[in-house]
């Protein structure tokens, strides 16, 4: 069974690769249900479910599992937000954002390891799962931002707004779960480490972004335009990457891999 679940991982990677190849070649599927990406998501879900069953814990510990869940959440966010004809152009950049973490995971040791006791709680799975779902929506935001900056479009603009709002909502709920978990596991619900600080930076960044949408209607802000808003939505993914990978890999952190 252990070998089977990894076959599903590789098949999902191949499907994501096919999707990216088709998109870069300018070939679009007739509908999202017929896309290799949709097949990839189904295979990926089966892989994660099987791994969860085999290891006995949510597959969200360590760099391999984190990267593959990140990839899965990016794909799911895309499927939720990017189903209309107007927003289909966002699949080109988004398919790359789905493929890269999965390809990165492919290079890492895939062995299942037992969970450290402190991680053995539903709050851990909720915290990590919701945070990654937020990251997935923010990745979709980058794609919509790029598409809008290149060609505009009201549907893309609205989808980008939804990506920030949905991402912010999922990420906020993830932070609440993380706080509850920390309170029961270690005592303080908050500690001063770079990872925690950057998590709040991501939260404040997108909280502010969801507010700025209302500025033009109210009073205007020097230079605050739809284009700048889309640029900020796209740049948010950079903040997310710094939080997820930059802080964990470069700085001493409570969430180091």
């Amino acid at each position, binding site marked *: 069974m252990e070998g089977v679940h990894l076959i599903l991982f590789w098949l999902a990677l191949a499907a994501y690769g096919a999707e990216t190849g088709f998109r870069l070649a300018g070939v679009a599927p007739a509908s999202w249900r017929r896309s290799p990406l949709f097949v990839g998501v189904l295979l990926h879900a089966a892989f994660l479910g099987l791994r969860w069953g085999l290891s006995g814990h949510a597959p969200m510990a360590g760099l391999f599992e984190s990267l593959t869940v990140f990839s899965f959440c990016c794909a799911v966010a895309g499927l939720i937000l990017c189903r209309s004809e107007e927003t289909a152009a966002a699949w080109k950049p988004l398919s790359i954002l789905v493929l890269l973490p999965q390809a990165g995971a492919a290079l890492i040791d895939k062995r299942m390891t037992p969970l450290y006791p402190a991680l053995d709680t539903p709050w851990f799975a909720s915290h990590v799962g919701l945070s990654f779902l937020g990251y997935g929506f923010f990745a979709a935001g980058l794609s919509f931002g790029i598409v809008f900056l290149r060609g505009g479009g009201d549907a893309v603009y609205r989808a980008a707004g939804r990506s920030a709002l949905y991402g912010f909502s999922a990420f906020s709920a993830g932070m609440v779960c993380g706080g*509850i978990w920390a309170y029961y596991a270690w005592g303080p619900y908050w500690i001063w480490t770079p990872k925690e600080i950057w998590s709040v930076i991501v939260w*404040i960044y997108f909280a502010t972004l969801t507010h700025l949408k209302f500025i033009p209607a109210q009073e205007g802000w020097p230079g605050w335009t739809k284009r700048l808003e889309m640029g900020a939505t796209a740049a948010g993914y950079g903040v997310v990457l710094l939080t997820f990978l930059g802080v964990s890999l470069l700085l001493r952190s409570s969430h180091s891999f």
Partner: protein
Amino acid sequence: MKALWRFLTSLKTCAWAGVAFCVAGAVGSVVMGSYPELFADMDAQVFAGWFARKGIADPAPTLWLYGLLLATALFAANAACCTFERLVQIFRGTATMRRLLPHVMHLAFLGVVLSHLVSAVYGDRIPGVAVPQGGFAPVGGTGWVLRLDRFDAVMAPEGYPRDFSAAVTLFRDTTPVARGVVRTNEPLFHEGYGIYIKNFGTTPWGAPYAVFDANRDPGATAILAASLLFTAANLLYLFPARRNDA
């Protein structure tokens, strides 16, 4: 006065507070690693005590914290004034109740900030209470004494702990006031304090010992309630019908 109110209710203020917070936090995350001797004990005591001692004594490397606190205060004032303004509009009938939902999130955010302030000032941190099995150790200045009745650890073949737990009794003078089993993710709570197991080992004479932390966060329950309120309002806000013109 009008200009001050406009400043406090403005979305521009929210924007600049957000930018200031992100910049101060980003700088701080790097500075913390450059001054480990300064920041290492930040979590070993409540924030207000640490900041009063080190933030004022050595302001240069802690300047980012001043920025972070100022930005948070500005955010909180901005959210409070914005919500007050909306409540006045609703009271006067110039805005509908449907437009209240984001302000429930504002109020929840304020609840989190204020409750965290309470924990940061009136909380307590007692790290590193080491007790051998069958032995006693005082728990900081609480007047309690902790006895480790029994320690159990389940080790994986690879050598790391799979599960560990400690049966403990808490005494005031010679009277037991609380008794329970402490394990990872399952602290023992008594009179606002949580007793957490942090580490374990074997004494030179072969007896097992466990190390505990005791923490008191008087704002924690309020933070949990405010966080859940925020999440609930946030979920409702995701329904577009409730979001129109919010």
